[in-house]
C-alpha cells in the first residue's frame, strides 16, 4: 500500500515538474522575442535590412572629431573604420565615454540614424568590449 502511494506521489511530482519546465520553455520562447538584442557592427547595419522597431546593439569606435553635445542631446558617429553610422543619444554619457574609444549602444535604427536609449559603460580604461574587438578584427584593423 505504502509503496503504491509512493509511486503515485512520484508520478504526480514528475507531472508537476514537467508542467513547470514546459511553461518555463514557453515563457523563455516568448521572452526571447523581446529580450534578445542582436549585436551589429556599422558594416552589418548598412548591409542588413533592419526593421525600424527592432532594438539592437551597435558597437564600434567613436569617430574622432564627431562628438557633438548640444544640451543633453548628444550625437556622434560610430565606426568600424570601414563604415560609419550616426548615433543620437539623449542622456548622460558614461564616465569613460570619449572619442577614439570603443563603445556599445542599445537602441533602434531610424532613417539611417541610430537612436540610442542606453550607452554601455565600461568599467576600465583598457577594456575593449569583446564584440567591438571582434568586429574590428573582422575588418582587419584591430589585433590583440
Amino acid at each position, binding site marked *: 500500500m*505504502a*509503496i503504491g*502511494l*509512493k509511486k503515485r*506521489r512520484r508520478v*504526480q*511530482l514528475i507531472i*508537476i*515538474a514537467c508542467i*513547470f*519546465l514546459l*511553461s*518555463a520553455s514557453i*515563457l*523563455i520562447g*516568448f*521572452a*526571447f522575442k*523581446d*529580450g*534578445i*538584442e*542582436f*549585436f551589429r557592427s556599422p558594416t552589418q547595419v548598412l548591409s542588413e535590412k533592419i526593421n525600424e522597431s527592432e*532594438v539592437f*546593439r551597435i558597437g564600434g569606435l567613436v569617430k574622432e572629431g564627431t562628438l557633438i*553635445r548640444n*544640451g*543633453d542631446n548628444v550625437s556622434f558617429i560610430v565606426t568600424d573604420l570601414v563604415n560609419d553610422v550616426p548615433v543620437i543619444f*539623449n*542622456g*548622460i*554619457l558614461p*564616465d*569613460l565615454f570619449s572619442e577614439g574609444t570603443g563603445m556599445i549602444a*542599445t537602441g533602434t535604427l531610424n532613417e539611417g540614424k541610430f537612436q540610442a536609449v542606453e550607452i*554601455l*559603460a*565600461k*568599467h*576600465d*580604461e*583598457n*577594456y575593449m*568590449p*569583446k*564584440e567591438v574587438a*571582434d568586429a574590428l578584427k573582422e575588418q582587419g584593423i584591430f589585433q590583440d
Partner: protein
Amino acid sequence: MLAEIGHFAVIVAFMVAIIQSVVPMIGAAKGYSGWMDAAAPAAIVQFLAILLAFTMLMIAFVTSDFSVKLVASNSHSLKPMLYKVSGVWGNHEGSMLLWILILAFYGALVSLFGRRLPLVLKARVLSVQAMIGVAFLAFLLFTSNPFERLPFPPIDGNDLNPLLQDPGLAFHPPFLYLGYVGLSMTFSFAVAALIQGSVDAAWARWVRPWALLAWITLTIGIALGSWWAYYELGWGGWWFWDPVENASFMPWLIAVALLHSAIVVEKRETLKSWTVLLAILGFSFSLIGTFIVRSGVITSVHAFANDPERGVFILVILIIAIGGALTLYAMRANSFRSNVVFSPVSRESGLILNNLLLVVSTIVVFVGTIWPLLAELVMGRKLSVGAPFFELAFTPFMIILALALPVGAILPWKRAQLSRSGKPLFGALILSISLGLLVWSLQTGGRMMAPIGLGLAGWVILGTLTDLIVRTRMLQLGFGAGLIRLCKLPRADWGKAFAHIGLGLTIFGIAAITAWESEDIRIAKLGERFEVSGYIFQFDDIKKINGKNYTADVGNISAFFDGKLVATLKPEKRFYPVQRMPTTEAGINSTLARDLYIALGDAHGDGWTIRTYVKPFAVWIWIGCMVMAMGGVLSMTDRRLRIASTSRLKNLS
C-alpha cells in the same frame, strides 16, 4: 623576500592539499584509521600555509612594494589604506588567492569543530574539499601567480581601478566568496555521502549550517554589490541582469532551495537524493559563475580581463568537478531510499513546490545567461539577452513562489487540510488583496506592477505574521500568554519568520521603485530651480575639491518639499589622475519613504547636466536583504543544529 615566502607557502599548501585529498580517501576505503586521522591536521596546515601566503601579499600591498607585479599594476602609494587592503582582492590573482584562502578556512573549520563527526565521513569530506583545493591551487600556481616579481620596479603603481575604490565594493568580494566557497562545503558533504551511500537526519543537520552560512554571506555580498551599482554607476539602477550578476544569483537561488530541502531531510528523512543533487548543483553554479567572471567568454561590464588560457583551465576544473559528482550521483542516488509518505497537501509538498519553482527559475536565468555564448558558438551570431527577457520569463515563477509561500509555511507536516490549516490566512489574504486594490485605485498610471507587487509583499509579510500568531496560539490563550510563547519559539522559527518577512520587504521595494520612480535629465545653470515629482531642487553651487588621490567637482543641490528644505545633495564627479579616469558619485538622500538621487554629468558652458531621480521606498530593497540575512543568522544559532549534531551522529558511521 616576502613575496618569495608567499609563493613558497602556496607551493607547500599545494603539496599538503594533494596529500590531504589522497591519504584520507584511501584510509576511509580501507578502514585505516591512522590514514583518516591525517585529514584534520592536514586541513589546518593547508589553511595556515595559505594564510601565510595571503598575509605576505597583504604586506606587499600595504607597504606598496612595487617590485611585485600585482602591486605595481593594482596599487598606488597615495591610495587610502582601506583600498590598499581591498586592492589585494581587487584583481584576478589576488581574488583567486582569497577564494582559496576561504576554501581552506572552511576545511580547517570542519577539522576544528567537527570532532563529533564520524571519522569516515570527516575524512571523506576533507578529502573532497582538498581535491577542490588542489585544482584551484594549481590554477593559481600555473596561470595566475600573484607573487610574480618585476625586474625593474616602477617608482609608483598603476592604481586600483577607481570604480573599485569604494567601501561597498571593498567588502563585496569577501562576502561573495564566503558564499560561493561555502557551497563547496555542502558539495563535499554531498560527495562524501554518495561515496558512503547513506544520508540521514544527522547528515542534513551537518549540511544545513553550511548551506545557511553560504546563503547568508551570498545574500550580503549580492546586496552590497547591488547597492554599490546603485550609487556608483550613476544610472540609478540596482540590478542589471548582467551575466556576472546572474553568476552570483544562480548559486543563491539554489542555496535557497537547498536550505529548504535540507529541512525535509532533517525532519522527515525524505527527499534525500534530491537534497544531495541540490548540494552538487549549488557548487556547480558557483564554478560556472567563476568561469563566466574570469574567462571573459560572455561580455559583461564587470568581467576581469579576458584570458582564454585561464578560461580553459577553469572549464576543465568545472567539467571534472560537475561531471564527476553527477556521475557518482547517477551511480549511487538510488541507494537513498525512504519509505516516508506524505499527502499532496502538507509541509513536505509545500517545500517541494518551493524547490521546483526555485530550480526552474534558476534554469531560466541560466538559459538567459549562457544564450549569448551558445548563439555565438552555434549560429555565429552575436547577441545579448537583456532585462526584458528576465522580467518576462523569471518574474512569473517568483510570483507563484510568493503566492504559495505563506500557505506552504503554515501547513503541518505529513498530512493537512487546506481548508483547516489555511483558514487563519484568510485575514492576511483579504488584507493584501485590499492593499493591492487600494494601490490600483490610487495610482493614475495603468501599470499593474505596483498593485501586484504590493499585494504580494503584503501577503508574504502578513502571512508570515499570521503563522507566528497561530504557532503561539495567541488568539486562544490571550495576548500575554501568546507573547511568552512567542519568546520561547526556537531560533529556527524566528529565522524562518525573518527570512520570509525580508523577502516580502524586498518585493515591496522592487515593486515600488519599478512602478513609481520618476526621472529627470536636464542642463541646469547655477541657481536654477526645477521640480521632480513634487520636490523642488535648487542648484546652489559647484566646487572643486582635492581628495587624497583624486580631484572632484562637487555640486550642492538643495531639495525642498512643501517649501521646506528636506535635504542637501552633494553629487560628485571625480577624476583619478593616475588612471586618468573619471567616476560618478551620486548624491543620495535616503529616508524610509523615498530616495532623492542626483548624478552629475558634464559641464556645458555655464550649465551642468544633472540627472535626478525620486525613488519611492528604494531603501527597502536592501533592508529586506539584511532582514533575510538576519533570519539566516538566527536560524544558524538555533541550539538544535548544534546539540543534535553531537548526540545523533554516533550511529552514522
